[in-house]
């Protein structure tokens, strides 16, 4: 059984800029989350999720060694940090925006991924919230 959820349920993200290119590193919450991401996420889906925000191509680079899926969004930052009218000049929020994309996830994968933050708090302690 699969459930449609936002990518945020199974992945973390960090994004930034290289000129007009926005780079988004998706960091899988669990090994099974990574496998799901590799199958569920395509350049076409990402392009359609961002609409006009991403004017160029989308490239994906799987990194099984660290269970990350690297995403490159071209012509995504209004010409680049120094000239863009975007409030988020360097694309720091683009990763979080990508985590809003919907994906179909097997329920057992989802259940395990949802325990990630609790496990992190158990290991490192909780400093806030």
């Amino acid at each position, binding site marked *: 059984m699969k459930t449609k959820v936002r990518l945020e349920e199974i992945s973390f993200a960090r994004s930034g800029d290289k*000129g007009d290119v926005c780079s988004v590193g998706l960091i899988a919450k669990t090994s099974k989350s990574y496998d799901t991401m590799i199958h569920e996420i395509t350049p076409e889906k990402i392009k359609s*999720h961002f*609409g006009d925000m991403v004017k160029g191509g989308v490239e994906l*680079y799987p*990194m099984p060694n660290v269970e990350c899926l690297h995403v490159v969004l071209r012509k995504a930052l209004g010409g680049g940090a120094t000239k863009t009218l975007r409030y988020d000049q360097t694309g720091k929020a683009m990763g979080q925006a990508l985590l809003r994309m919907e994906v179909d996830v097997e329920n057992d994968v989802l259940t395990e991924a949802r325990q990630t933050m609790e496990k992190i708090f158990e290991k490192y302690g909780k400093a*806030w919230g």
Partner: protein
Amino acid sequence: MKGIRIGSGSSYWGDMLEPAVELVEKGEIDYIGFDHLAELTLSILQRVRAKDSTKGYIPDIIPWMKEILPPAWDKGCKVITNAGGANPEQAGEEVSKIAKNLGMKGMKVGVVTGDDVLPKLKELRNKGMEFPNMDTGEENLDLIEDRIVAANAYTGSDSIIEALKEGVHVVVAGRISDNALYVAPVMHEFGWDFTEPYFDLIASAITTGHIIECAESCTGGMSNIWQAVPEPWKIGFPIAEFYENGETVITKVLNTGGLVSEWTIKEHLVYEVLDPRNYIMPDGIADFSSVKIEEIGKNRVKVSQAKGKGRPKDLKVCIGYKDGFIGEAQLFFPWPDALEKAKRAAEIIRKRFEITNLQAEEVRYDFLGVNTILGETVSVEDLDYNEVGLRVAAKAQSFEEANKVRREITHLWTISSVGAHMGVPSHPRPVISLWPTLIPRDEVTTGFTIKEV
């Protein structure tokens, strides 16, 4: 096994000083690197230098070195900084003066130069070489030639290594790559050169440099797991324990804030990277797709197994050119109907721009608190918002046109709806646009001089 400890003291111009001082005092580090330069910074600094030839370096270098040099001199920690910006010679002079005033007799300050390729670019263009824009594909540099303010190459470790061989205690450079701040000391200490047997090892140093070069960003800053990150106000900057076999352990000073975990290191491994199999730096091309990340203890993460491909034949050059002005302003609307009030105001200012004949290349409207940073990935729903801001931004070629944003948003205060409120709108800011391109490595010659106190 021989290891060296390298600290990362700064990730941007304006970063915190205290964690850097703490690193030198308590981190038992052999080297500390300081990155103060973003892509835009050289253009700002070149303009400063054009007005005053004794300026053009990062002014922070003076207060920073006053605090860093005493513990560094005392502990034998060497300092490598790119705060020289557009004027490394003068910055080196200032550092020498500080050292002299602090009584550090015998301190050697190395100044690395050669990254300013503006004259070279003109010479090569005259010979028919082209410098297409890597972002846009535009090939004709003539379009911007009369507006260029800076052209600097991201240079590698070569001259830093040579200066370190001469026994310098401080290296002041300009636009060396951030990464070279960390690759240079590793290569120097282990006696590596740029030949094939060292490709993987240099790739390891590049990978480690990439992870620590943004300082706090790998020790819990900007993290997805921010709720597990203790005491960010006294965050510890990273230390890389680098070993001769290419393995590194990333850690931080005991009892500092922040967190070094497999998560925070992974987050930074994938930060601001294009193709992770080909992370191109002046000192080599690293393949991150083989890198192994293991948490081996509290605030200790081991990074290993990077693969490398040797140095690229070209260096990246960032050309900065004057490109008009941006006017930007915002005002806020209160409940009830906050979003509708903001939408109405956007319509009003659009009409005002028509009446005042705004000549802009682009105008942008955002609803603050609704869709400003998530853009089209969120739907603008008709919710019962407590408050919504309207942000208006326009890019124009003249100050006067861009300034219309400031003038017209002020009118919204009086002609839009009840309860609107704004702060003081700022004046338009000048825009420096960037033209990233490549230059053959052989055309860029770096060098160094030494000033002894």
